[in-house]
């Protein structure tokens, strides 16, 4: 697997003189700044995601992790910067990118069944105005089966547990048959069985040559679940293979000043030391 450590100390080159990046990288971000109400949330982010890898985006609350994803996907406006997927703008490769938003971002009392939600992953393939055909329903059903929810397909989504709801979201992303999976905190508040399902799914995706970029809040499991990490706190603190960037020094820079988190980080690094292959 090819890896590259991004040196964030250097000023990002202006867009005109930026070196042509690899069309192999599923997500390249150049000099991206995002601001809400004139208050910057992300500052000058430069990042190239490695192909065929599982990447964790890690950082404290308010570090701009979700914003990074949303801005890359054009869901929140960027003040400056350029984002490309496999070397082309997002609008040309929408079907190759599956997005799993935070579970709390939607209304789970909405009158749809689990299968209805998974079918939404195929709308792009189906196209405007056409109804969801049987073939697409079968494909969606297969994805529900992959996350172990086939027998709950016709349940209204409010009757599912939190973990099951998260798995419905994953199944919806699978139904898109994308090459890059961008997930916002898929592990937040899920049960152990769901966590295992997600981890297995991520590994299967990587083995099938796909990539995943996952906002992750649990420092304990970063080294265990992911190949690469992007440490973020408004700016990119460090990015690269976990064993290189997941260091006490970098974590200190990312979580600087937050003592409880810092000790948590130290503990995580200690564990990582044991786990390093």
């Amino acid at each position, binding site marked *: 697997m090819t890896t590259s450590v991004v040196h964030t100390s250097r000023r990002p080159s202006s867009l005109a003189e930026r070196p042509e990046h690899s069309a192999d990288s599923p997500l390249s971000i150049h000099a991206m700044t995002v601001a809400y*109400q004139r208050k910057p949330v992300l500052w000058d982010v430069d990042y190239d995601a490695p192909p065929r890898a599982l990447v964790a985006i890690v950082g404290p609350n308010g570090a701009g992790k979700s914003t990074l994803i*949303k801005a890359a*996907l*054009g*869901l929140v406006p960027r003040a400056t910067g350029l984002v490309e997927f496999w070397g082309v703008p997002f*609008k040309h490769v*929408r*079907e190759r*990118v599956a*997005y799993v*938003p935070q579970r709390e*971002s*939607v*209304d789970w009392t*909405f*009158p*749809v*069944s689990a299968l*209805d*939600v998974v079918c*939404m992953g195929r*709308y*792009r393939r*189906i196209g*405007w*105005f056409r*109804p*969801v055909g049987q073939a697409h329903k079968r494909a969606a059903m297969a994805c529900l089966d992959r996350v172990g929810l086939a027998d709950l397909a016709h349940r*209204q989504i*409010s009757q599912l547990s939190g973990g099951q709801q998260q798995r419905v979201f994953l199944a*919806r992303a699978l139904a*898109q048959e994308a090459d890059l999976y961008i997930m916002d905190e898929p592990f937040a508040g899920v049960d152990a069985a769901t966590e295992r399902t997600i981890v297995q799914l991520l590994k299967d995706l990587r083995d099938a040559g796909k990539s995943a970029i996952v906002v992750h809040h649990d420092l304990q499991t970063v080294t265990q679940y992911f190949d690469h990490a992007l440490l973020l706190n408004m700016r990119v603190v460090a990015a690269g293979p976990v064993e290189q960037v997941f260091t006490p020094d970098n974590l200190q820079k990312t979580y600087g000043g937050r003592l409880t988190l810092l000790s948590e980080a130290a503990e995580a690094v200690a564990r990582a030391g044991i786990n390093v292959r």
Partner: protein
Amino acid sequence: MNLAPNIDLFPILAAVLAAFCCGLLGNYLVLRRLSLMGDAMSHSVLPGLVIAFMLTGSRAAPVMFLGALMAGITTVVLVELIKRLGRVEPGAAMGVVFSVLFALGVLLIERVARNTDLDADCVLHGQLESLFWPDGPARWLDVLHPATLAAVPPQVWTLAITCAVSFVFVLVLYKELRMAAFDPALATAQGFHASILHYALMVLVAGATVAAFEAVGSILVIAMLIVPAAIARLLTDRMPTQLLLSTTIAVVAAVMGYLGSIALPSAMDKPQVNAAGSIAIALGVLFFVAMLFGPRDGVLATAIRRFYLTRRIALDDLLAALYRHEEGSPITSRFAPKVYARARRSGLVMPGQDTLTEAGRQRAAELIRRHRLWETYLVHRAGISADHAHEPAEHLEHLAEPLPSGGPQHDPHGKAIPPGVE
């Protein structure tokens, strides 16, 4: 009560058409938690009407429609702007926009249109009664004559066209609208721009509001946009059923309310009341009925479920107490005689005495097994001390979780856990 086509045909038709398009589009307002948008639209069209009149000096239907439609669209844009720039919650943004615009409309009417027949009262209560057809036939069969078509008032035409457009819009964009309402971020990421769909929908809502309120007034428009969809929400968990139910309910309420406005007062020897008002009240009554008798969260359904649950728990607790008694513990809780009676009727307790039957012992053993497995779990896994584990286990034992087989033989108090039945 006698209905005659020359009096009732067009008012009923207008009410039904207004009910249909508002009832249909209202679903998306209720599902996106934008119910107040109906309120906002129907109030803020007033300045649109007045300004259109000021500019053209005409009260012709197309002029009024256009003016009101522009006002509706302005409302949507203003609400979005205020939400974004003013950093206030959507409800407050809508409240600010429509109250200010409505007030502006009222002022303009006073200043500019004092001498015309633009009348704030008509705006609020509508003029279904103005749709009477004085030269129309007095028999319903004669309505089928082609000449009827020529007599259809413009308001009814506008409503019919709005209905057709809304229906086609919802039908063709069914899946897109559903995704954009459920998960706008995903819809946008997939190229179905949620904000464009939102604006298209809002333009239609503005159109429906304007078309409907000329006939039925703004109060009824609010009721028709929100109440049928809210009723359907209480009755179903399926989107197609939701759409079907809300439109059916709206149409039924329109007919019911219109007939009621004639029949009820005449039964009491009073003059006919405002039809729009009685339709809105019919909707309110239907909502109340759905709230009481809804199958899922209805007050009655909840009470019945709770009653049966209480009964089952009382019976379970009795069986468990008798089981523990057989183990040598005293019975500490007191059970009502009717609980004993029910247990005996179900063949779980021996008739005439306080001992379990074989069936009763089996069910009690399962329950005790649940209780002691939970206690074991709470003590060993959740870190609760042994003397505090009984209370939570007492609640948890009633959960209908599948009962695992195998596992520990004794609970933290050293009592035997009855073996699982295969």
